[in-house]
């Protein structure tokens, strides 16, 4: 398994950078790949927002190129087609969640930082780690390639509800060579990659911690990755099962999700029938609800790290935080049908799921409150990572709070499938998770590269990003309260859609400005990687173990295996010489 370590010959380029088993290389591979996917997914939305703001107007600059390069997205004048709008929408969601945020948060940050934070030389299964990346990448490529097949990419939403998803994208004679089937195949790759990774994370965290690193001395980031890994391990398989069943419905004409007697476009469908569209929804949401906690938990972990480091005091209520995050993970498995309130659900089921949904809001509130209380009595350093971590707090609050009207079925009657939902979840993921991920990038960049990112460019990135995130998503609540439906190519034919159109324009301009605001980050990222200010092992004066390794750490991470003597956030310990006491330094050497 790790017999490579016994030999000291330098591996060639391919073994070192491409097919490496080193968790740090794999982490960077995941991070860079997912950042590219995030950029692509965001670009899809920037195109959609043109149609929303200026319905039926040809897309400027790239309309012509789109018409020639891709099928089924724009018409020959370069105007977005309704089916193209649906395809971009479905792929935006899929790419952002499965190819962007989760691979970055778990595959990128988790892979790179977690083993360092527990003092391990690598993951428990380095080759499995490599395999999981190389299964992820083809999955992503299949997803992107689906834009170029007959009929274009999947266009039934990232939720892929049958019977629409089974009857859609059926142009052409080859049952495999179409967008929806490729979406399903791509998902199978991505789910497999995720399963391989989650096994690795759990075994590593439980087995590979160094001496002295008891569970309740682990950094909160490691706890977050730990719970996340369980969610991925246990929640994804039902979607894999559902994906196989939908594939069979599409390719082999089975009727898992297809009821009898369907008449599509005037044609009576020849399915054996008897299937249930609701079966898909239950299986899908059984994964997809824990999935959204997969989206937020690593971010919460990162925010915890950055706050502790930049308040120069321990996180408030470490144990409370740990119990809350475990409880949150557990509860996330029993709330899924709050996405299905309007499917004809009666009082028993809806009461159950409303109750569990209300209960799950408690640990979220506790975690947010604990972070806020961590600011009390602090000595706050407004470094660039801290700016993002601080901004996360009110943004996550808005996202979480707006989940309440959706989680109660009576108010959900009016708000279900409206822009209110889009506003809610984007607040959690975009000004929430993504800003936390930025905090993590700025924070751990020096560890990965040995250089700091530029502070001025960082602030130039932060402030416009914060402002424009709100400009894009806050108006959506107003549009949603008016009852405007989601996924509409043109909202203005509806009275309420027409009246709220100015908000829509504001969101669109906000989105384009948000895109521009990322330029300082992109420049900073690449410039600093090569020419940024060089720093030593611990530029942030942090306590956790990753900062004990050199920057960047060598193969095997720690020249000497560390031993842990104290908790993860021993900052400003009364009577100590410095305002931080690293985990690996014995008491004698501190005082």
């Amino acid at each position, binding site marked *: 398994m790790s017999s490579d370590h016994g030999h000291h010959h330098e591996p060639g380029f391919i073994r070192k950078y491409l097919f490496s088993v080193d968790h740090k290389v794999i982490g960077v591979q995941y991070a860079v790949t997912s950042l590219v996917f995030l950029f692509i997914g965001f670009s899809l939305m920037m195109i959609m927002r043109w149609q929303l703001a200026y319905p039926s107007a040809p897309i400027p600059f790239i309309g012509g190129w789109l018409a020639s390069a891709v099928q089924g997205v724009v018409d020959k004048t370069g105007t977005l087609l*309704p089916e193209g709008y*649906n395809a971009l929408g479905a792929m935006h969601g899929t790419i952002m969640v499965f190819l962007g945020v989760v691979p970055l948060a778990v595959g990128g940050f988790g892979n790179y930082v977690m083993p360092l934070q527990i003092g391990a030389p690598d993951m428990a299964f380095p080759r499995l780690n490599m395999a999981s990346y190389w299964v992820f990448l083809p999955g992503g490529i299949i997803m992107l390639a689906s834009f170029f097949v007959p009929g274009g990419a999947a266009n039934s939403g990232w939720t892929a509800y*049958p*019977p*629409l998803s089974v009857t859609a994208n059926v142009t052409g004679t080859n049952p495999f060579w179409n967008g929806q089937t490729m979406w399903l195949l791509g998902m199978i790759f991505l789910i497999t990659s995720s399963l391989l990774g989650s096994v690795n994370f759990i075994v590593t965290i439980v087995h590979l911690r160094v001496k002295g690193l008891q569970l309740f001395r682990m950094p909160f980031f490691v706890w977050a990755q730990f719970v996340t890994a369980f969610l991925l391990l246990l929640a994804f398989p039902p979607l894999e099962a559902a994906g196989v069943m939908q594939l069979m419905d599409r390719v082999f004409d089975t009727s898992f999700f297809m*009821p009898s007697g*369907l*008449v599509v*476009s*005037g044609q009576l469908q020849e399915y054996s029938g008897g299937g249930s*569209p609701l079966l898909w929804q239950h299986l899908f949401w059984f994964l997809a609800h824990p999935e959204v906690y997969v989206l937020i938990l690593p971010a919460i972990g990162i925010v915890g790290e950055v706050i502790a480091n930049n308040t*120069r*005091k321990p996180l*408030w*209520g470490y144990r409370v935080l740990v119990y809350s995050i475990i409880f949150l993970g557990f509860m996330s498995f029993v709330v899924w049908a709050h996405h299905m309130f*309007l499917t*004809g*659900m*009666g009082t028993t089921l809806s*009461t159950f799921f*409303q*109750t569990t949904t*209300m209960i799950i809001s*408690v640990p979220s509130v506790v975690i*947010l*409150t604990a972070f*806020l*209380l961590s*600011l*009390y*009595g*602090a*000595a*706050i350093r407004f470094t660039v990572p801290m700016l993002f971590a*601080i901004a996360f707090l*009110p943004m996550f*609050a*808005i996202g979480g709070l707006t989940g*309440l*009207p959706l989680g*109660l*079925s*009576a*108010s959900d009657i009016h708000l*279900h*499938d*409206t822009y209110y939902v889009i506003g809610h979840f984007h607040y959690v993921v975009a000004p929430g998770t993504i800003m936390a991920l930025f905090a993590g990038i700025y924070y751990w960049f020096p560890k990965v590269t040995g250089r700091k990112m530029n502070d001025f460019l960082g602030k130039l990135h932060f402030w416009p990003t914060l402002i424009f995130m709100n400009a894009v998503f806050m108006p959506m609540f*107003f549009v949603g*309260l*008016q*009852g405007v*439906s*989601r*996924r509409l190519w043109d909202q*203005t*034919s509806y*009275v*309420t859609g027409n009246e709220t159109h100015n908000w829509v324009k504001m969101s669109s301009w906000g989105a384009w400005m948000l895109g521009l605001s990322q330029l300082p980050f992109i420049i900073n990222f690449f410039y600093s990687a090569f020419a940024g200010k060089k720093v030593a092992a611990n530029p942030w004066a942090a306590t956790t173990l990753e900062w004990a390794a050199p920057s960047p750490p060598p193969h095997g991470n720690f020249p000497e295996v560390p031993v842990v003597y104290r908790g993860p956030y021993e*900052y*400003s310990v009364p009577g100590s010489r410095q305002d931080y006491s690293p985990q690996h330094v014995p008491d004698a050497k501190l005082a």
Partner: protein
Amino acid sequence: MLATRYWLPPDISSHGSAIDNLIAYLHVFMAILFVGWGIFFIYCLIKFRARAGHLARYDDVKAKPSKYAEVLVVAIEAVLLVGISMPVWASYRNEPPKDDPLIVRMVAQQFAWNIHYPGPDGKFGRTEPKLVNEISNPIGLDRDGDPAAADDVVSINNFHVPKGRDVVVRLSSKDVIHSFAVPLLRVKQDVIPGMEIPVWFKAVKSNDEVREAMTTTVALPTSEADIEPFAHKHRGDVFMGDFGQGAAGQPLAARGGWVTKETIAALVQAKVVEVAVAPKDPVNIQCAQLCGLGHYRMLGQMQILEPDAFTQWLESQTGGAEEFIDDE
């Protein structure tokens, strides 16, 4: 005037106020939490910023107030859940109106709403997927084989209902999942193929009343170039009065007439400054579940009529499969 609250659209249903109240209470609750957190947040950012001579404190601050606040939060959520949401949901799902409701079937399809009335005999004729003909018989009604079908009425996209009477809609779909949503009636229900799901409501205002209440006065464009966008923006509207005067003394824009580019141009030329307009069909039916490329144009219209007008309308329909698509 129609009451609107906190960015909610007008509520013209009999059951909607409970939903609106819940939404309002929730948002007040959310605002209190957010502002409370926010004040503490800003206070900390300012008071505890790092500066010369200022040190962080190591001990955990005892956070009794926040523990009480957390308990209060849970209590309020419980009250909202048990006190409002559960009863509202129960009556929304479990208690169909018993007082002589109008019962209709609605068959959703890509991309239209087919409304099926049982006719004077009160019985729905049999429908059969094999009999579906998209042009002449979209719901597959067995007019020849089933005597109960002879007096049935089928209308498309325009859902006529009487004001002030309970309406029960038995929803089904021909092809994919749709969702019957009428925001102004606070009604939404997924329409799932293979299932028939009922939903009910009572409209307390007619289309005419809603239109009157939604009337706004808008300034006409001053330049040529703005006429087209103005007309496009108001393409679903009608004039709510007579405006301008033509050569023979007739109004350039008559009450109830569509807002068109030509009429606007004529009014602008006649130096008319402003007009009163309102949506012709102010109570829209939306599809609230992605159903394909035509999802955005699954626009239906509620036609809420005074009881007599409704009876007149129903009687005027034949048992044939005439289409009532409002073409603009």
